[in-house]
């Protein structure tokens, strides 16, 4: 029996480096062989504060990154940490994005959804893929990773959308996606775009899925639901109305599956299981 398989206690690891991405976002780098794949997550524990699911922003087998936006008590406490401070982790957990050799991918990232999308782009380049990376935020100061994405080389084309038009397209990432797919997408498109991956607010991801439908391109997305255990026991992240769990059957799920869910793009549940509409 594989005993380690059933051990979900924490590994205690120290922060190796901290990078300030923007006014509200920091990347924490850990020299630790996590072995995560693009789209997977881990549970991160700050003793006395909380334990939260975090997506993996990069992992090369020697070090991994977690990018954290200041949104609540846990992330604020994370922002107060220094190099050398320790956190508890367990993972990697959940499903990941399937990247095929030679794929032409479109990645659509909203806000801090850019973190896992960056990890996808990084792997995709290593696998000889073409990538259109659509990066969106409310304004140019909140764009995450633009330089890092540009640094991935000529196989990655960066498109920017800001709600206020302070950089790139003024409007939504979905409008840029529509243009990119119109030019390249679908079986008949000249660019042979075969997959769209997206991470961001659920309403945005639903809209991304709808644009993909228009061009008959398959989409996969990173679902974010309230999680407690992360290991398939508590049932907190069960989806309506299949009852599948985001922590085990996700977080990466196909739009073909998600589009049928009555809750997709409409509501989520809190730690007590109560519905909140977006």
């Amino acid at each position: 029996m594989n005993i380690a398989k059933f051990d979900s206690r924490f590994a205690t690891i120290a922060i190796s480096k901290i990078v300030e991405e923007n006014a509200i976002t920091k990347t924490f780098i850990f020299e630790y062989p996590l072995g995560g794949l693009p789209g997977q997550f881990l549970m991160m524990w700050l003793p006395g504060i909380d334990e939260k699911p975090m997506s993996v922003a990069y992992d090369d087998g020697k070090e991994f990154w977690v990018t954290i936006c200041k949104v609540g008590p846990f992330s604020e406490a994370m922002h107060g940490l220094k190099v050398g401070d320790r956190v508890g982790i367990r993972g990697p957990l959940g499903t990941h994005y399937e990247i095929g050799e030679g794929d032409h991918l479109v990645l659509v990232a909203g806000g801090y959804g850019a973190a896992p999308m960056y990890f996808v782009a990084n792997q995709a380049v290593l696998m000889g893929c073409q990538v259109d990376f659509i990066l969106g935020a409310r304004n140019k100061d909140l764009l995450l990773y633009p330089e890092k994405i540009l640094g991935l080389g000529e196989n990655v084309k960066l498109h920017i959308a800001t709600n206020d038009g302070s950089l790139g397209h003024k409007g939504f990432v979905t409008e840029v996606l529509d243009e990119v797919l119109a030019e390249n997408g679908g079986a008949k498109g000249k660019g042979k775009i075969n997959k769209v991956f997206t991470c961001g607010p659920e309403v945005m991801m639903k809209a991304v899925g709808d644009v993909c439908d228009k061009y008959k391109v398959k989409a996969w997305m990173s679902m974010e639901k309230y999680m407690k255990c992360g290991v398939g026991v508590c049932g907190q992240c069960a989806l309506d109305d299949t009852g599948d769990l985001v922590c085990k059957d996700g977080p990466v799920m196909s739009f073909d599956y998600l589009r049928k869910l009555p809750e997709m793009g409409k509501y989520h549940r809190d730690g007590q299981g109560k519905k909140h509409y977006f």
Partner: protein
Amino acid sequence: MVNLSVDFCGVSFRNPTVLASGVWGVTAAALRNVVAHGAGGVTTKSIWMKENIGHRNPTMFGTEHYFLNAVGLSDAGIEKAKEETFSEYNKEKPAPIIANVVASSIDDFGEIAARIEECNPDLIEVNIACPNVEDSHGKPFSCSSADAAKVTEIVKKRVKNTPVIIKLTPNVANIGEIAKACVDKGADGFCAINTLFGMGIDINMRQPILTNKSGGLSGPGIKPAAVKAVWEIYRATGLPIIGTGGILTGEDVLEIMMAGARLVGMGTMVYYRGVEGFGLVVKEMEEWCKKNGVKNIEEIIGVAHKA
């Protein structure tokens, strides 16, 4: 063909496995999913009169031998249970549903039991045994015969037509006596065991892993404690029992049924085998019964007492 169906207080279950309270029971969809994977019935998470926040994470972790949790009975309250969980689950009910209820005072147990009956559960399971939620004296109600009897009495007074089963703690020396005290006040059956007291310390962080510090111990390591408790309750009362605690396989189900369990609850099992485990366990039971000439699963209930 093996007949796996059992009757529990007049409610028919297609097989003896039920989802134990606290696991997967947040939504009707999750409960339906458990039934679709083979469970004979389901139990809700503990339902309170009002919203209960529960404890902050970490709330659970496991190893190959055991699982520890201190979720703190988080719940949205009776209104959500009524309007959502039960109304959706009962639309085309796929299997019997057991409503697990909890309260922090004896009077409130009567109130929640009466309210939950309006939701039409098949059985009402009264949780007086959670190690993570305590009475004003800092102990579960099922730690004393007097308290357990008082809760049973008030619940039975308020519930009109639904069988009432009392969920007991193993953290006592006299579980048989406590069960008997409940029978005297009209308990229709029992569920045993709730989790044992437990704690885990992260040696690198030098502090308890669970935010609540202590938690409830479940998983394969506690099966002997569950078998023993079921044995004692069966011997003391002869009433129907949902045996639960460390049950992972079809063989485990048969073992605790031989101690006296009529239904068998599984919760932590999903950590080790996934929700698919319900179907696997049922298959394992069926195979054993075929090999051993058991035609009707009810034949084996309490059979070890006759040895």
